């Protein structure tokens, strides 16, 4: 079933994009405005048109991937409107973050070409429809059906379309706040796990990839904070946010996330005196982890403590003796023993998440500020269904929150830890390698290849591998990475400064010299789509990285480069993006390149995005709002940055090149038909 759905979805992806952009209410986490989404879509279209032409040769999958890439690029370029080139795009991406693009994507499934004509037909039709009736996405769907009928067995397709809608894959553009106050924006597909998003952010930020890096959700209204577990899907909890929410997603190091694996004695032997715990030998730590996480059953630390409970709906805090068990939290009723059979169940964890409370002493008159909260993830406002607990000290609080996580998530936590450890190890090796390679700024391609694997994660379908690495360079924000980066590129010294936010913008210049440099120069390679000419190209590179292979997301990450465009972008962004796209397209033969990469499925979505552009107008406002936050930072950056050389390269590669303006739909149609014919 899944496969089927996926296939259909792929085909229909374009349609979905259109419709979604129009009608869907994306729940944008960070940024409010839905407009952004639209913008993205629209952007996608223009580029896509060009790309479509090229697509004819390549296969649909490639198209999908390209489209996605284009979308990313376009988003980034939104700002670029003024510049008209792709370069600016990066900043825009940052801005938009908030809104999520719900566009559904089928992408991956589509990859299977076998689905033949019917599938292709449908996909084609969608685009066409969009082309014809650009404005309302929904309407577009009708046309598609008609086309399908003409070409294919209409009934089946209609049914399939309905199913597809159900199976829509949601995408959100999410803004991730970094410690230094800057932000990164990525498109996140609902099937992506936090781990995958973290990996994308690693590539974008050049951070050291250690196991503490986490995504945290903050709830402004309730003053809560929670670290997502790496195996969770990111989109789902974000969808629970209210439209006007001031919630944020933070990308930062959280020691407590994996502390239980680093110092299990603090949790499993918590009753022992501190000195004994401190002196514990490494092999004993290992043994503890083995005992508790590697057996047939996961063992939850047997916690017992007097905690303060805020009674339902009351202001007072009452003390109770609580116990943690694998099956839930219990308390000992007054006058009863601690025997298991007398315990009263306080909560079980099936439908609850655990959050840290911030500053509850003043907010709720809690006895201390060491509070944690249990609530259903969908509850966003004060409610009697939220359980507030207060501990005497920070240690107790961490003990309980970690214990609850172990009880709730079990072995997944340990698997997450092992995965992130591997990632940290690989990336450290990687950086070492990459640095050297980067040293040859001029020769981007080689380096690229080496790095390409990483990129693989991103969509990086782009022909030139080199660029990808460059992307990394863009990311710099995180200081640490910077350092690493620097070494390799001997010359660059000058650039180093740019780091943090500015770095995004500045990166380009600096990059070239550093490791990044390779990237930048190459940027073109990445193909991201972006039009070479415009300075911004770097952005493009970025996107590819982000774009994780998985169909969906892709890449909005482009943030880094765009700086300049940013300024311009702000207001117009959404609409602008479209325009940009067009602009970019012409020059950028590069986009075409993207297409070729064959990335896979993602393309479709991109296609979908394309058509919508026209409608986008409305979004702009929203976009502006969304953009607001990010922009500030970005703009400066942008100004700093320049659009270096990279773009050109891209252009060269660009397949379609010029096509740009043509209707994506029609182009797609053509491509599809060709393909069909081939089959």
């Amino acid at each position, binding site marked *: *079933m899944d*496969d*089927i*759905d996926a296939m259909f979805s792929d085909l229909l992806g374009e349609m979905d994009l259109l419709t979604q952009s129009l009608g869907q209410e994306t729940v944008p986490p960070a940024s409010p405005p839905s407009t952004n989404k639209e913008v993205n879509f629209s952007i996608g279209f223009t580029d896509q048109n060009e790309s479509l032409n090229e697509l004819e040769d390549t296969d649909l999958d490639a198209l999908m991937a390209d489209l996605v890439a284009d979308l990313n690029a376009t988003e980034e370029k939104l700002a670029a409107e003024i510049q008209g080139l792709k370069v600016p795009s990066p900043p825009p991406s940052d801005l938009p973050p908030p809104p999520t693009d719900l566009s559904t994507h089928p992408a991956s499934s589509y990859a299977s070409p*076998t689905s033949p004509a*019917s599938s292709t037909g449908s996909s084609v039709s969608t685009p066409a429809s969009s082309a014809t009736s650009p404005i309302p996405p929904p309407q577009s769907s009708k046309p598609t059906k008609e086309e399908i009928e003409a070409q294919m*067995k209409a009934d*089946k*397709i209609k*049914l*399939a379309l309905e*199913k597809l809608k*159900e199976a829509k894959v949601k995408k959100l553009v999410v803004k991730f706040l970094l410690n230094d106050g800057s932000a990164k924006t990525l498109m996140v597909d609902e099937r992506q796990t936090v781990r995958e998003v973290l990996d994308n952010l690693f590539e974008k930020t050049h951070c050291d990839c250690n196991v503490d890096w986490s995504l945290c959700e903050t709830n402004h209204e309730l003053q809560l904070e929670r670290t997502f577990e790496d195996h969770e899907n990111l989109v789902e909890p974000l969808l*629970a946010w*209210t439209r006007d929410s001031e919630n944020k997603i933070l990308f930062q190091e959280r020691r407590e996330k994996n502390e239980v694996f680093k110092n299990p004695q603090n949790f499993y032997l918590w*009753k022992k005196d501190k000195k*004994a715990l401190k002196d514990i030998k490494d092999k*004993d730590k290992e*043994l503890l982890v083995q*005992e508790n996480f590697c*057996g*047939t*059953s*996961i*063992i*939850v630390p*047997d916690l017992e403590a007097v905690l303060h409970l805020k009674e339902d709906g009351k202001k007072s805090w009452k003390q109770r003796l609580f116990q943690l*068990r*694998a*099956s*839930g939290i*219990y308390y000992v009723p007054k006058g009863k*023993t*601690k*025997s*298991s*059979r007398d*315990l009263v*169940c306080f909560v*079980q964890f*099936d*439908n609850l998440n655990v959050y840290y409370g911030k500053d509850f002493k003043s907010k709720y008159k809690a006895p201390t500020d060491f509070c944690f909260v249990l609530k*259903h*993830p*969908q*509850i*966003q*406002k004060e*409610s*009697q*269904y*939220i359980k507030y607990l207060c501990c005497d000290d920070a240690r107790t609080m961490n003990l309980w929150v970690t214990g609850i996580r172990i009880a709730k998530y079990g072995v997944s936590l340990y698997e997450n830890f092992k995965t992130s450890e591997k990632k940290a190890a690989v990336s450290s090796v990687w950086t070492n390698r990459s640095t050297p390679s980067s040293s040859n700024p001029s020769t981007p391609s080689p380096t690229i290849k080496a790095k390409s694997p990483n990129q693989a994660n991103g969509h990086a379908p782009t022909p030139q591998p080199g660029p990808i690495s460059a992307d990394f360079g863009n990311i710099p924000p995180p200081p640490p990475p910077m350092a690493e980066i620097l070494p390799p590129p001997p010359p660059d010294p000058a650039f180093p400064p740019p780091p943090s936010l500015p770095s995004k913008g500045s990166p380009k210049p600096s990059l070239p010299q550093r490791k990044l440099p390779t990237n930048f120069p190459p940027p073109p390679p990445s193909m991201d789509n972006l039009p070479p000419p415009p300075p911004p190209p770097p952005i493009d590179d970025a996107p590819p990285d982000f774009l994780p292979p998985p169909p969906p997301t892709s890449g909005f990450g482009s943030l880094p480069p765009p700086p300049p465009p940013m300024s311009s972008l702000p207001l117009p962004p959404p609409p602008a993006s479209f325009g940009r796209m067009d602009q970019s397209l012409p020059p950028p033969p590069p986009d075409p390149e993207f297409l070729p990469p064959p990335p896979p499925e993602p393309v479709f979505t991109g296609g979908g995005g394309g058509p919508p552009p026209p409608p986008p107008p409305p979004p702009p406002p929203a976009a502006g709002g969304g953009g607001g936050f990010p922009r500030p930072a970005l703009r400066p950056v942008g100004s700093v940055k320049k659009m270096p050389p990279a773009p050109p390269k891209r252009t060269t590669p660009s397949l379609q090149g010029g096509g740009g303006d043509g209707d994506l739909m029609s182009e797609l149609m053509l491509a599809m038909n060709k393909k069909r014919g081939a089959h």
Partner: protein
Amino acid sequence: MAAWDLAISVEDLGPDAPPVTLSVASDLHVGGVILKLVEKTQIKRDWSDHALWWEQKQQWLLRTSWTLEKYGIHADARLLFMPQHKPVRLCLPSGITLRLLACFSNPVFQTVMGICRMLNIRRPEELSLLRPIEHKKKKKAKDLDEEIYDLTEVPLSSASRPCLYNGMPAHFADSSQMEAIYKMLSVTQPPPAPEVIAKQYRPASVVDKAHIHGRWLDSSRCLMQQGIQENDQIWLRFKFFAFYDIEPKYDVVRLTQLYEQARWAILLEDIDCTEEEMMLFGALQYHISKVSQSEPQMMSSSAAMDDLESALQSLEVKMEGESSTASEMLETMTAPDLNDYLKIFRPKRLTLKGYKQYWFKFQDTSISYFKSKEESIGEPIQKINLKGCEVAPDVNMAAQKFLIRLLIPAPEGMNEVYLRCENEQQYAQWMAACRLGSKGKTLADSSFQSEIQSIRSFLAMQKSSSSSHGNVPASDESINTHSLVSPRYHKKYKPKQLTPRILDAYQNVAQLSLTDAVMRFLQIWQALPDFGLSYVVVRFKGSRKDEVLGIAPNRLIRIDLGVGDVVKTWRYNNMKQWNVNWDIRQVAIEFEGNVNIAFSCVTADCKIVHEFIGGYIFMSTRSREKSDTLNEELFHKLTGGHEAL
């Protein structure tokens, strides 16, 4: 050398037959004695399993090349010539008794290995034998009635692993009776009748539990030396709670018996759990008994068959994927329709008092309702997305009340909604749909029908348990819920009060396969705080009162008898050495950091404590690389005490 007369009783001649007298010299070796003896009896048969038992010394003369002189045997020795393998009544963790031949001459450790080999249980080092709890005289009569499965005809083999036939040891494939026995071993038993549970001995305190652990047989000595007689009853139980390398494919019997032991530990409150946990255990038992009746083959299929099956399955999937046309795909995607007139009540909305009837439609994971069927094409009055919501039943069969209580999460909190169904059928469908919806699944999900089924069978349970008074369950449709929980809850709840609570827990496990359900049961059992603790009442050196020592797979704990609190924990990995002073029967343990403890054992021999500690250390030395060979020597070194030397 001078010859002298040696009288030997031959068991096979009967208890009243006079001893056979041989003329022997002190330099005759034991083998020669046996040869002479056999010749003199003039009975032709296979004597290979027979050996000489020296009654005064409580010792087997197994070294046939040793001379009588070397053994120190003189004319006054009372020797008995008898088989080394004798039948015993072996009580399994499931409570079922087998009659089989056990080795009376080797250390119990090897006897257990032999038994496990016969029963196809891997990792025999985790099990051991213990003396049964003495029954009162009344019960003895009942013991004779119980069905005993006879395995005494199984040939003794020394192969480390029996060859398998159809996934079971070849000796079980000999006849249909034997196959039935294997099925009994490898399939979980139906829930016991509540009276059976109530009649079983239940330890009421930690001290009672400690007494049970005083019954373990000594692994380094043979059955004969421990006073076990032919046809005696002994229990086979898992003793070391460190279950290594469980592989459902190969461990059918092991898993089943482990589950049975766990289930009885829960039912008899040998291990404490909370009410919520008890309900979940009850739900799992119900599910396991139901599934094991419907898919008994699953557990017994051989590894080879499994591989073949999975290969076939994947092939099928592949072909499906390739051949299916769009229409076929669409068909499979089509969800069944579910819409009907139901009544809704929202306690929080003042505007809606009482139940109001609307036309309800279930779509995707949402419920929409309309004023009437005719208006169902337009916009619904409301659409409720069930994803992530809590679903609880509120059913009373006698009163024909079928309520579904929904707690729907929203940003502001949880909204309470009640749906009222008219009858059982309607309720089962909508309840199943709501449950799927709450998990984010649509009606197209394959579990929809089975969910409906399980809800109906639970309703049936409630019906029957309210009419009959807990008679022995006739079919799985009418399990008395009292069969699933410990007697404490028999007093606390009536079966029909228990049913909804177990049903509530059941919805989370209803989709598990048999193996997964058994594994889940074991996992929850292992996650209980007191899991794996074997208790012994001890007297610590320098202390004047009895205390309890809890022995767990990774640690020792000291429990204050008065309060029941854990006073101190020592982990084995901090242990430097432990010694037993066999003269004063005291165990002394030294831990890192100059921590020394010493205690004498009150409810068990110190050999038992010694064996527990050494045994757990042995268990922790097992590793993948050498997983197939059991290091028997090491076990004895760690657990044998002075006798091993």
